[in-house]
């Protein structure tokens, strides 16, 4: 960089010397005269003094001399004038319309070429203008800027399109981005569903609207082809006048001047078509823009196809899963039931634990509750829980004899191709005048816990072998009666084997479960299962766990309980409370 002080005082002398070229000029002429760049020597009065060979080729009329402005475009003569007025070559600033930094470089078109004009000092306050042809560099720079802008748009589009797996949202985002970056308005047409198609409209800066309507696809040139996956029809073949009204968004002002119709390529089948509109007052789409529209459409199509695939898979999964999800429990024949289930993995809804309820036809009939645990977790285990639940449903008429039901279930499991075994608890419940009668049978499962009204917690003394592993099974059924406000809890070992706690590595364990239940005397069924699940979940914290299931069977409270005692030996949990 040159500092101002180093620059010769070009314009400091008075107008005393001759306007004609001096001998010194002629001598210097010999050095620059053969330069490959056009060089113009201009004296401080604005007269063109000398032009070299390359300059004469560029500006043939300049050979005869005369005023600078008579021979060159205004950007150059203005730059010369500005230079004289400013009195220095070294300061940066706007010269000839282009800001150039420290040196006073002007730039502009001469004929159809783009030149940069670099001034250097000549004799007696004159200026020597060196013209450098920058046409190609400028083209390259413009192309680079365009490419950068487009790749930025594509990258933005990819991020935005990847953000959602919702088909409708994906169409909204595609149309909106297309209207923002490719055209004035964009219309995204989804493949027809029957006779109707979903159409998404977006105008630059406007809201996106979606409709489902019957449309005449063949009315738009190239649209039918695009929806069938044929190569796009060139934009210049499409007459905007042929467009039917439905294509033009309501808030599109003016008449359509040019149109691009491009397919959205999908997974083998088209994901739809994109129609881009530009009004007649704007320039028509160029071939480059058509190519870019196809690049954008490729991304939009891929995203849309992924979203469609996801929604199809999600709906298949939901259908298949429906029968595997635990049922909603409620009050049946005067007894409260509540269940809670948490799969081993947070993104799953089903696993190897299950429960089911088969309400008795009326209050004289028993209601059968079953809770169990299939070896393993995840979907494979869940499929077997479905089989067990179906089998038990079929065996319902025999539920008067739990052991017989278990024998038949065992036989069914042994004869199936599943190699997994299961443990379960059966509970037959009937509300009578003497309380709620329970028949409980465990098949290799943790015994149910009974929460009495006074807060004592009993283990039901039932035991039996697990099902699906051995050729024969045995089980002992026990009878018990729940008084008002008493609860029987069926649960899986996922709860008691929950690992965590304040020290990080302990089982929740049966003792903690029983201690927690002792606090729950008299609580409604759903409050008990929720509390048990909550304590186990908080015990685990962010650690791993198995499937966890619990079902509470409660006899409703008849009378009203005593008031709070505020007694010190009533354990109170500070856990999970809000301090604010």
């Amino acid at each position, binding site marked *: 960089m040159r500092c101002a002080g180093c620059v010769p005082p070009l314009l400091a002398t008075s107008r005393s010397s001759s306007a004609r070229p001096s001998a010194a000029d002629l001598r210097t002429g010999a050095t620059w005269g053969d330069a490959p760049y056009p060089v113009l020597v201009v004296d401080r009065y604005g007269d063109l003094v000398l032009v070299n060979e390359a300059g004469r080729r560029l500006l043939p009329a300049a050979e005869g001399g005369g005023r600078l402005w008579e021979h060159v475009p205004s950007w150059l003569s203005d730059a010369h004038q500005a230079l004289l007025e400013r009195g220095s070559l070294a300061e940066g600033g706007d010269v000839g319309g282009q800001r150039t930094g420290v040196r006073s470089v002007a730039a502009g078109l001469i004929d159809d070429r783009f030149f940069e004009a670099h001034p250097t000092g000549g004799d007696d306050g004159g200026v020597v203008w060196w013209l450098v042809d920058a046409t190609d560099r400028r083209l390259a720079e413009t192309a680079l800027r365009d490419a950068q802008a487009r790749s930025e748009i594509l990258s933005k589009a990819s991020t935005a399109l990847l953000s959602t797996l919702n088909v409708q*949202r994906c169409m909204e985002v595609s149309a909106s981005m297309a209207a923002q970056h490719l055209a004035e308005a964009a219309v995204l047409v989804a493949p027809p569903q029957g006779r109707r198609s979903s159409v998404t409209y977006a105008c630059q800066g406007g809201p996106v609207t979606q409709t489902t309507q019957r449309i005449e696809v063949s009315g738009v040139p190239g649209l039918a082809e695009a929806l069938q996956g044929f190569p796009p029809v060139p934009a210049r073949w499409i007459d905007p006048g042929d467009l039917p009204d439905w294509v033009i968004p309501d808030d599109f002002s003016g008449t359509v001047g040019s149109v691009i119709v491009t397919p959205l390529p999908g997974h083998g089948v088209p994901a739809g078509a994109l129609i881009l509109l530009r009004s007649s007052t704007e320039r028509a789409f160029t071939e480059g823009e058509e190519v870019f529209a196809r690049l954008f459409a490729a991304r939009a199509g891929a995203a849309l196809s992924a979203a469609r695939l996801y929604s199809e898979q999600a709906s298949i999964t939901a259908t298949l899963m429906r029968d595997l999800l635990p049922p909603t429990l409620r009050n049946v024949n005067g007894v409260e039931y509540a269940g809670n289930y948490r799969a081993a993995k947070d993104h799953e809804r089903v696993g190897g634990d299950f429960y089911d309820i088969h309400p008795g036809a009326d209050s004289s009939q028993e209601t059968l509750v079953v809770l169990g645990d299939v070896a393993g977790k995840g979907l494979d285990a869940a499929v077997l829980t479905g089989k067990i639940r179906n089998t038990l449903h079929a065996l319902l008429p025999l539920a008067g004899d739990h052991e017989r039901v278990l024998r038949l279930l065992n036989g069914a499991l042994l004869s199936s191709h599943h190699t997994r075994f299961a443990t379960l608890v059966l509970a037959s419940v009937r509300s009578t005048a003497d309380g709620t009668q329970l028949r409980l049978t465990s098949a290799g499962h943790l015994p149910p816990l009974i929460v009495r009204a006074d807060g004592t917690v009993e283990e039901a003394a039932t035991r039996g072998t697990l099902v699906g592993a051995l050729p024969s099974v045995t089980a002992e059924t026990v009878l018990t009666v729940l008084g008002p406000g008493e609860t029987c809890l069926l649960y899986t070992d996922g709860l008691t084997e929950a690992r965590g706690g304040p020290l990080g590595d302990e089982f929740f364990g049966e003792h903690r479960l029983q201690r927690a239940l002792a606090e*729950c005397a008299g*609580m*409604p069924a759903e409050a008990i299962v929720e509390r048990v699940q909550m304590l186990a*979940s908080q015990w685990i914290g962010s650690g791993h766990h198995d499937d966890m299931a619990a079902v509470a069977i409660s006899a409703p409270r008849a009378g009203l309980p005593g008031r709070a005692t505020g007694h*010190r030996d009533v354990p109170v949990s500070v856990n999970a409370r809000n301090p604010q």
Partner: protein
Amino acid sequence: MSHSPAPADLVERLWRAVVEGDESAAAATVLDALADGTTKETLLLEVIAPVQERVGVEWAANRITVAQEHGATAINERVIALLAHRSDGAPHSAHRGRVTVCCVDGEWHAMPARLVAEVLALNGWRVDYLGAQTPTAHLIAHLHGTNPDAVLLSGSIPTHLPTAHAAISACRATGVPVLAGGRAFGRDGRYARALRADRWAADARGAVAVLDARIPRPDVSATRLAVDDLPHLADQEYTLVVQSRATLVKHTLVDLENRFPAMRGYSDVQRERTAEDLAHIVDFLATALYVDDPDLFTGFLTWTADILQARHVPPHSLVAGLDALAQELRDFPRSLGLIRHGTLALRRHAGVPDARSGSLPDPDSELGIRA
């Protein structure tokens, strides 16, 4: 309407019914009021919500038992469900859009979210209510499936704020704006802003107003990481405290036993309760580190001191626990700052004497955080 009973009377009647576990009396109170012309929104927000709030207050003051507290909440839930299926004669308002209402993963207090969901439905919104402790993965799958106009994320316990942050970022990354609410986000919504929720509302009616004004969709092209929102996380104190939670609790326990040999006589249950209390302090400390706000930690400590006061337990051992924890965290400047702040606030709040000059913790109350 002139004949409808005053909400304050209804609150008193419903409170008596739920605390006595009398479901039919609770249902009758609310359904009779509905028949007398009280609107559903009034019943939800001016009768059921205050009763539920009182449940928490009475528990904190040790005037009701855990069983009563849970029973009351369960009955309130049932009353809300009952109400949802009755008409209050008001015209059905227009369909305004679709929203998802859920609780942060790990958050079991579903009542505030439930009330908001019911009130939004009354105000013409189509509501998908996902309930308590919604795993973030389920929430996002639901968003992909339904494309709602907004997610309303409820949180009551501040220790879920880091999880809430992950949920907020994930929702926004799918292009769905988040309206945060609940006490976890601070009385003034400061944590909702810190975690870059799009909006915050103080209550159900506030949420209705925010949704009516429409929330623009977030810019999905600007992907953000937690540390972009909260640059202080780069010091790793939060990460290290969370990762060493179990070790911190163990070491602090040993330190306390050395200071107070009487603690060695604790039963297993007492010892475990003390450990749980310490773990709780560490959880709140970590959360305060996450949002970089000492008020969050001091708020927890002074609230705990009040809980202790209600159970006639002097909370000086809380200060002893903090002191021991500070020894463990001596290389963590932000943690030490929070603990110092908390200790000062505790002393001012309850006149707790200096731990070293104070008496031993009451062996019946373990660390003293639980009664």
